[in-house]
């Protein structure tokens, strides 16, 4: 994840030129602190924020845009320091920040920065930072699975944090994605299933480190009376490209987003 700070130095130079910074978290793998920081900033200054969602076939962005920033500059800088000192500190020089953009990429580059994070913390971020309509249900389900995986040990391996991170990366990157049914594999990996019927089934096991295993049952697009059934391995980044021809988004994504 990158934090994209777009600032304008009109106030000081009067040139009107725009500039931007891409800031990577200072602490590698400190994804949670970043996300929580964005959410807290947004919640604290909600009326000054506007959320903008944009997406391409391979990535999606949730932008938190601060409106009328000059009036709130001190509040903003104060919050910045307070909530994410390690990951967010930027040598700001009194310039007015206008835009905060949290950018979620489904890419191999992101996974290379992954480190193990606490599972309870990861689950907490779902509710504090997510714009998913089912964030509460999702967090509750993951909590149940996390606790049960500990109770069922050794028949069940504990939930894998890397698997959970990859799952959250995917689910945050697809606008309009519907609530999957989530289980754990014996190995402790998250398996998310979007199943509409016996013939419309999309299941993804998140192996961690940007790797997935998937199963797709889907009507053939040229002959709906025939069912295609495929399974395989994929990187997280390529998963949806592989699944796309099977039209899985028609039941895994809300209609209005799918139509778009």
């Amino acid at each position, binding site marked *: 994840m990158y934090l994209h700070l777009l600032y304008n130095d009109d106030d000081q130079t009067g040139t009107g030129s725009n500039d931007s910074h891409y800031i990577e978290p200072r602490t590698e793998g400190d994804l949670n602190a970043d996300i929580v920081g964005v959410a807290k900033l947004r919640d604290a200054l909600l009326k000054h924020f506007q959320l903008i969602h944009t997406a391409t076939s391979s990535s999606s962005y949730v932008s938190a845009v601060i409106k009328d920033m000059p009036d709130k500059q001190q509040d903003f800088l104060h919050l910045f320091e307070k909530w994410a000192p390690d990951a967010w500190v930027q040598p700001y020089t009194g310039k007015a920040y206008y835009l905060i953009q949290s950018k979620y990429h489904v890419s191999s580059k992101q996974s290379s920065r992954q480190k193990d994070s606490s599972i309870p913390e990861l689950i907490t971020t779902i509710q504090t930072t997510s714009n998913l309509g089912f964030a509460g249900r999702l967090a509750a*389900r993951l909590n*149940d*699975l996390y606790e*049960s*995986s500990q*109770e*069922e040990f050794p*028949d*069940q391996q504990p939930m894998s944090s890397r698997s959970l991170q990859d799952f959250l990366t995917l689910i945050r990157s697809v606008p309009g994605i519907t609530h999957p*049914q*989530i*289980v*754990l*594999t*014996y*190995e402790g990996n998250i*398996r998310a*299933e979007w199943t509409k019927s*016996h013939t419309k*089934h999309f*299941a993804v*096991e998140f192996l961690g480190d940007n790797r997935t*295993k998937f*199963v797709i*049952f889907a009507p053939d697009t040229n002959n709906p009376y025939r*069912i295609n*059934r*495929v*399974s395989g391995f994929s990187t997280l980044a390529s998963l949806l490209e592989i699944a796309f021809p099977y039209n899985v988004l028609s039941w895994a994504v809300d209609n209005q987003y799918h139509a778009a």
Partner: protein
Amino acid sequence: MKGDKLPDADHVTRYCGFTQLKPDGTPSGAAFRLRDFANGPEEYLSVNWIELLDPVNRSSAIDQIRTILARKRTMGSLAKLAVINVGYMCSYVHTNTEDSRSLRVLHEPDPVDPSHSGVHGLKLEDELIADLIAQTIEELHTAKVT
């Protein structure tokens, strides 16, 4: 007798832990996959042969399976036993797999578990077949002895 093929008309149960149950209570295909242990993968998917224990009274057979399994493993309070018809499962998998996979359900009794049986013909990477098997479940019962 060990190695006997179970009749197509008969049924087996598969223990499904809570973590393999979907929120709607039905088992995911994740409950029908082989495990990979340090000393190698499982040879077959463990199940229990219902009709061997009681060919007439299914409730009685399920009760016996609960008791037997409780001696062999920790039973989760929310875990379930999925009932599957042997012939339907084998036929469904054969029909819907690219390699027309032939599963065989064989009797694998052990001293404490006379109805223990195994679904043979699965490989570790058979997620697709595991999901097909999950689609053949006929009934669900609580796994823990009540």
